[in-house]
């Protein structure tokens, strides 16, 4: 599903990232660990096409991301990638259900229809938020906000789920619950899950762990 080959990227300030090879198959869960500043978030940006690599190749579901136009990369992000952010990144003025539907409001090429609304409600119901669909983020607990954020990442049935410190702000019980949801959805839809994390306690739950310290040493 995700295939990375000899990926190179350098920031003007001097930081450089080199990933010789990495692949994540459909339904596979992979954790990426490494020290702060080692380029984990940059990797997610390169995989999603937010950043363009200086060299090498990223392939998503058979499509080479580097060969796409800007508009095509946006379309790919909207339709094939689900993002879960560390700070949840919910929109403060929208209720929970509209936050879940946010990708349809702004994503290139997506159309908000009845099926999308049903999917959003179904996810919120499944995540135990069926009675809180009209609540805004500030009216929800941390764990509830993270569940809304996960529902938003899943609403478009993405082939790839990218999670950046998705459990960083949660207590242990909520961390487990959030991972349960992500893993269950990945298994159900066959999506590849690439998860950047600092939390070593969670690593045994992943199919594979990639340590950026090892990658850089290999490079």
């Amino acid at each position: 599903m995700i295939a990375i080959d000899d990926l190179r990227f350098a920031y003007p300030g001097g930081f450089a990232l080199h990933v010789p090879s990495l692949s994540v198959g459909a339904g596979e869960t992979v954790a990426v660990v490494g020290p702060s500043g080692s380029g984990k978030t940059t990797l997610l940006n390169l995989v999603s096409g937010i950043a363009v690599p200086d060299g090498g190749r990223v392939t998503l579901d058979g499509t080479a991301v580097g060969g796409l136009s800007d508009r095509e990369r946006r379309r790919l992000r909207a339709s094939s990638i689900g993002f879960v952010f560390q700070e949840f990144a919910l929109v403060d003025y929208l209720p929970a259900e509209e936050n879940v539907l946010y990708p349809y409001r702004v994503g290139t090429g997506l159309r908000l229809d009845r099926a999308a609304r049903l999917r959003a409600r179904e996810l919120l119901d499944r995540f135990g938020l069926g009675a809180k669909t009209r609540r805004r983020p500030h009216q929800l607990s941390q764990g509830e906000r993270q569940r809304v954020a996960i529902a938003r990442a899943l609403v478009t049935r993405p082939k790839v789920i990218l999670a950046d410190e998705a459990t960083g702000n949660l207590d242990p019980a909520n961390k487990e619950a959030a991972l349960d949801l992500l893993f269950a959805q990945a298994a159900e839809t066959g999506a590849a899950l690439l998860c950047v994390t600092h939390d070593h306690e969670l690593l045994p739950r992943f199919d594979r762990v990639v340590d950026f310290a090892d990658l850089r040493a290999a490079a």
Partner: protein
Amino acid sequence: MSALFLAAANLRFHWARTLVLVVAAALVLAVPVLTRTLLAQGEAQLTARANATPLLLGTRGSRLDLVMAGAYFTDDLPEPTTMAASEAVWDSGLGIPVPLHTAFTTGGARIVGTTLDYFDLRALDVAEGRGFALLGEAVLGSAAAARLGAGPGDTVLSDPENLFDLDGAYPLEMDVVGVLAPTGTPDDEAAFVDIKTAWVIAGIGHGHDDIVAEGEDLSAAAARAVQFARITPENIDSFHFHGDPATYPVTAVLVAPYDERSATILRGRYLDAEGPVQAVVPRDVVDALVARLLRIASLVDAVTVVVGLAAALALGLALFLTWRLRAPEMRTAFALGAGKGTIARLALAEVGLVLLAALALASPIVIILMRNADTVAARLIALGS
């Protein structure tokens, strides 16, 4: 559609900030329109009134004060002249003199003491009740009646000139006998009484019980006299005036010359700079005033443009700062597949909705003012020069 939805949701959620933006934008939109409308209406009213006032006589001094007080009933009064000026016109046979005494007010409305000729000259119609016929009766202009909440059968009280008004100008309760049809002129804001009623308020005329006992000294009896504060059928016969009527004060004498030749002769009679009375053609004075107003209006226009630009920049800055605060949301939107076009549409939708709301707020204010511009302008003119 989504851009509009998101913009509306954001504006609704941050309603206090939105309210400030909308009110500020509404003011920026409305104030120039209101200013121009009022200026145009004021100019039209000043000119129309001046054209309908052929000649004014008054004490030599400020021509503008005389015109403003005599034609527009403003608060700034010139030194009064006397009834002799009016009688001189009458004796000349060159026109009809209409004395005007405008020194007093009732509930803020100017009391205009005059004669019935004034109503003919101004073509005023009584819409309700009748014209004044007796001492102590008042006919209200339409706006004054509405503001005072008074009509035929009610009474109005003249305003005291000062708190401890021991020297004349006693408050007089007057019977309202009629209300004039609206004219869109300063007459709407006035309360009309017979000029003798104005003199009663001034303390020149008064009424009291017959209190002189046989063989009593007059001055001792006068000290005991209690003057009537209202003129009624029972006491009207007791009202009397002291002194020579020719010396009674009038603010101005409005003159309607019989023809152009009479007007020229009349004007010639008051050319002597040493004479106590001057004749003024209101149109000449108002033309000069309007020309000055137009110059000021040009300045106001320039200031309005600068202030409008500053306000627009301030609004733009407020919106820009709002967008800076929303940078995390925009980053999220970008990660979720939004393009610059989507984000631009969001910004435009917000600006558009704020402007639409501002227009919706400003429009009724502008429409209401434009519909009532004549009344507002008349009141502003009547406030004084």
